[in-house]
């Protein structure tokens, strides 16, 4: 039993209502309840948040930096997805 390390959890905090939860760091805890309590003590000592999410790290699937190209490069040559791609007359004040 001893020498068994507590699992790692990722902590996300909403700093105030209206904003999204943001990743702030990680911590070790035996279960979700302890992760929540530790997150409060470690990451919100100065009113940094109004809401906390904790997720056990092993449950996160992350993209591999080696696949950077195939994942993200296809978006590079698609300027037509941006409003500035389309030419409009200067007289047009609002659009």
């Amino acid at each position, binding site marked *: *039993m001893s020498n068994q390390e507590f699992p790692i959890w990722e902590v996300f905090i909403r700093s105030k209502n209206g904003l999204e939860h943001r990743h702030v*760091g990680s911590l070790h805890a035996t279960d979700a309840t*302890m992760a929540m309590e530790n997150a409060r003590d*470690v990451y919100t*000592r100065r009113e940094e948040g109004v809401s906390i999410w904790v997720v056990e790290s092993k449950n996160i699937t992350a993209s591999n*930096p080696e696949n950077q190209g195939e994942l993200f490069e296809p978006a590079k040559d698609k300027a037509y997805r941006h409003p500035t791609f389309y030419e409009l007359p200067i007289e047009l004040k609002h659009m």
Partner: protein
Amino acid sequence: MKIEDLEKKFQDRIDAGEKIEPKDWMPEKYRKTHIRQISQHAHSEIVGMLPEGNWVTRTPTLRRKVGLLAKVQDEAGHGLYLYSAAETLGISRDEMFRQLHTGKAKYSSIFNYPTMTWADIGTIGWLVDGAAIINQVMLTRTSFGPYARAMVRICKEESFHQRQGFEMILTLCNGTAIQKEMAQDALNRWWWPSLMMFGPRDEESPNTEQSVKWKIKRKTNDELRQQFIDITVEQAKVAGLTIPDPDLKWNEERGHHDFGAIDWSEFWRVVKGNGPLNKERLKARNDAWDNGEWVRDAAMAHSEKQAQKEELKKAV
């Protein structure tokens, strides 16, 4: 891709000011240097709680007690942010603890000095945290993302540490003659060890060049030390204290203060384990870990039991 090409690409990214994230390719030495530096930084935060914890039960007022307690709690938090950052590089928390407990990993030598009077607590906040802030502000721009982010968080919290320390010193300096003497005595004992916190002189620091190239460090030990001295001299004047260095004087030409020779033999003596409290500090950490074992086991057992109960509920 050949290793030289990967290394070249890596250096190009650093030169372009890009941050390196945990899963990115990095030279093995970059990884190892970071594991060493971040874990030692974390250990310093954790061991750094001991000299101040020594005074939590003996603060002169309740106001000082809540301040000191909050500061010590912050140090624990800072240690945790940093351990997490190091873990992203593939070392486990337990392995880092093992390295600290066996004496393999170092922590800042400043914490091997004793806190003998209440003025020492103020002086630690003023000088030790002051020196740490100078180093840490630089590290908010370090090239490894998780380390830089931990530093931003830490720097936001650290400024209160220094201010509460300096306020304590000012209070003593505006008090009785004996109180002021106490503040001066603490400054006399902590001044030189504080200057040593920045590490050996540049020519004695073989890793500096590579660290600067990889933007692990953005300034050298001597640059940071000089910056600290220039700032602190002014603060000492405000408090009406004398910095214990007869050679300290403003050098108009350099635009900096000149200062006396640092006793590097003392620095190396303490780094190598022969400072006033090296053994006590290590023992305190080992005791805390060993005596906490049953608590960790109980917490784990409790969680397993709760999970089993949940399973049963679902099955019924």
